[in-house]
């Protein structure tokens, strides 16, 4: 037992002692500056992006769609396929010949929707695969953890699907950027719609996913629903990935509330909504009014999972494939041609983030994170499906219109599940980056 192992050791010892001196140089120090100006400076004919998405867990569906979008983005950047949004993007720097003349390659990893695993996988991309930029994530907890890792390591983080205020609020980082909207914008967009449809005298009951995004979402909806005169009866926190929500839904019936706010996402939302409908909540009359359910953050993938149950339920979304502008149409067309179905909002935001990064590098003329930060801060663009958009310099958050959607009563296809009720313009959802709930410190950019 173990005898052979020791022989290997001895052999290694012989080789090792000779190479000992060289060891220090052979080993990849990701924190040493060395000869290159910044971490993972691409020297060959290619540049590597790191796509870090959940492939298992509660957000696996979103993760799979994100990865499809990234692969499409890489094709378009390298000049394969129909070019997608490169044709409609207001910045015309990218020609489909790679980025700065380098072919785009990528490495993938599984975040497992766990901070630990996501950071390990991001570290692997940075230290081993030489990724110059990390993007992805389908949970705000993970996004915040990976964003701070990228800040420490000195690479750019382009956040994927993360909706918590904190990502660009109190946990904002100079090296991190977010295209997706946040809970504050959801609240600001949904408030008037809820008022118009459900009136001012309502009692709300929250079920909230118990992590940074859920807390943020609950806070924003409370803020805007209380502003229109609603009363918050109770807010109950549920563990992420709970599966069975019946124990949380039963008390709702006896609470005297007449609106249920489901601050859930992904499979959690599919389960909690389905169970709430099965418990007959929507057929009830409370306080002389119809009982209503609101899902602040909606996506087509979730609507697909929840099926019939989403009919008539309001929510907000970053983007929807049925939008008729040129950019959205181009994206739906090339995504559909490759995969055979329309993209989700997660796919859209990830695709756009990859393109925005590539464009920033092209405009800056360098992959240096600090140059890219400079190119993206205050960048205004259009043609990406969300109308005119600003990457605000103060907090690295994109400001664009927010969609209020409703579960379609009469879907015409299996993908036609959400109906866009209103496109809330960017001015209506813009907030002060130094306000109490948002104040954070970007710090200095880190190039490693």
């Amino acid at each position, binding site marked *: *037992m173990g*005898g052979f192992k*020791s022989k290997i*050791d001895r052999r290694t010892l012989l080789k090792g002692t000779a190479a000992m001196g060289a060891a220090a140089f052979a080993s990849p120090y990701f924190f040493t500056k060395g000869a290159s100006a910044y971490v993972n400076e691409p020297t060959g004919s290619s540049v590597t992006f790191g796509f870090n998405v959940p492939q*298992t867990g509660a957000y696996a569906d979103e993760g799979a769609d994100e990865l499809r979008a990234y692969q499409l983005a890489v094709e378009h950047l390298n000049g394969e396929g129909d070019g997608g949004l490169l044709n409609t993007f207001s910045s015309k720097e990218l020609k489909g010949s790679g980025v700065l003349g380098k072919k785009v390659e990528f490495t993938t990893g599984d975040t497992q929707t*766990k901070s630990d695993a996501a950071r390990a996988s991001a570290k692997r991309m940075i230290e081993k695969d030489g990724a110059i930029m990390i993007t992805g994530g389908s949970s705000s907890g993970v996004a915040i953890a990976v964003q*701070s890792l990228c800040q420490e390591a000195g690479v750019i983080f382009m956040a994927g699907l993360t909706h918590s205020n904190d990502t660009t609020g109190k946990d904002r980082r100079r090296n991190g950027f977010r295209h997706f909207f946040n809970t504050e914008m959801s609240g600001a967009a949904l408030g008037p719609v809820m008022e118009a449809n459900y009136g001012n005298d309502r009692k709300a009951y929250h079920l909230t996913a118990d992590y940074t995004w859920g807390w943020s979402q609950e806070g924003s909806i409370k803020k805007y629903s209380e502003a229109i005169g609603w009363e918050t009866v109770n807010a109950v926190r549920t563990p992420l990935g709970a599966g069975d929500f019946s124990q949380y839904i039963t008390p709702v019936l006896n609470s005297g509330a007449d609106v249920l706010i489901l601050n859930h996402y992904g499979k959690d939302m599919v389960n909690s909504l389905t169970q709430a409908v099965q418990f007959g909540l929507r057929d009830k009359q409370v306080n002389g009014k119809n009982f209503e359910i609101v899902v602040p953050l909606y996506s087509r993938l979730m609507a697909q999972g929840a099926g019939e149950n989403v009919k008539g339920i309001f929510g907000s979304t970053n983007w929807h494939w049925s939008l008729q502008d040129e950019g959205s149409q181009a994206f739906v067309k090339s995504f559909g041609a490759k995969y055979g179905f329309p993209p989700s909002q997660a796919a859209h935001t990830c695709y756009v983030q990859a393109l925005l990064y590539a464009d920033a590098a092209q405009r800056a003329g360098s992959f240096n994170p600090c140059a890219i930060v400079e190119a993206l801060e205050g960048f205004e663009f259009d043609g990406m499906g969300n109308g005119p958009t600003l990457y605000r310099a103060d907090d690295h958050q994109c400001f664009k219109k927010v969609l209020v959607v409703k579960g379609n009563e009469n879907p015409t296809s299996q993908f036609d599940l959400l109906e866009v009720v209103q496109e809330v313009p960017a001015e209506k959802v813009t907030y002060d980056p130094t306000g109490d709930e948002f104040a954070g410190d970007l710090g200095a950019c880190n190039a490693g």
Partner: protein
Amino acid sequence: MMKFFSQSSEKGDLVLIALFAVAVFTMPIWLAPFGANYPDLMQRFAIFGIFATGFNILFGLTGYLSFGHAAFLGVGSYTAVWTFKLLGMNPIPAVIASVVVAGVFALVIGFISLRRSGIYFSILTLAFAQMCYNLAYSVLTPITNGETGLRVLHEDPRIFDDKTVETTGPLISQIFGYQMQGMTGFYFCGILLVITVFIAMRIFRSPFGMMLKAVKTNQNRLNYTGVNTRPYTLAAFVISGMYAGLAGALMCIIDPLAGAERMQWTASGEVVLMTILGGVGTIIGPIIGAGLIKYFENIFSAFNDQTLANIYSFLPDGLSEVLVSVTSLFVGEGWHLSLGILFMLIVIFLPGGVTEGLSRIGKLIARRTGKAQKNENEGGRRSSPMPGE
């Protein structure tokens, strides 16, 4: 070489540990062909090596299968981050505090769980670990920060840190100005791995270790002869809890963030897999097992179709496409599948784990070369079989 393992000679142990140390510190060189020589993965090899070594002190020696060892890992992690928050970013207090707190924690859980043995013991430890996980996730959110994970913030007291310098940058654990990141972090973990393996080796060889092996062989017989085994098993449980606490602390030293998912039952199951895969009851086995599992998790899971296409690019187009689509089932998202197959193969054909495989190959080579040494070893082993093996 066999002699060193079968006879407890102190000199032989020292030679072995020296060889082991050389193997650990030359990892950046000999792991290069496997693409695993980057700091983060090597740090993980060392940390999970410590975790599995500690687990093996309990499982390998006493035969008590704990299914809740991740709880101690988590407790160690949280303690380490709290020491960072309160005392400052020096890793030494974090290591000491984590080991002590995990030890006390293990004492409490062990005291209750060890009243039962066999499957009941496993279930009790599993229940405790899941309790800890759920508490960390929900009720104890003020202490653990729930799902988001506990982090060190700039506004934390950190009373021993010099707060006049560096106010905005990331907070990284450091000692004497050496930052516990990258290769420095790896060497720090590596040194602790060598020390802990040496301690484990001494425990294996000691009379205390013999007593633990006796517990594994036949606890009833020991009880009938009037030996109270509980203090011995409890001591083993506490020691292995402390090892787990140390591993948890190291995870936070290289990356100051503690999340509740470290305590989940899957993490407890993982260390059981590591130990069995490598070889239960051997000193080097669990470390090999830990390395294998972490290698699969980090390298195999990262293979995508693009990588595979590159590997098979020398083959004709049609054939390489078929191979890519077949192989892609076993890598990337499917890495669990290949790990499962490997685990089954090992359990069925090599019940003693990878170390058994290695020693079989070793014997085969010895037989081929026809050395007398082999007979001597074989004879030596037969005449004095190790209890519980």
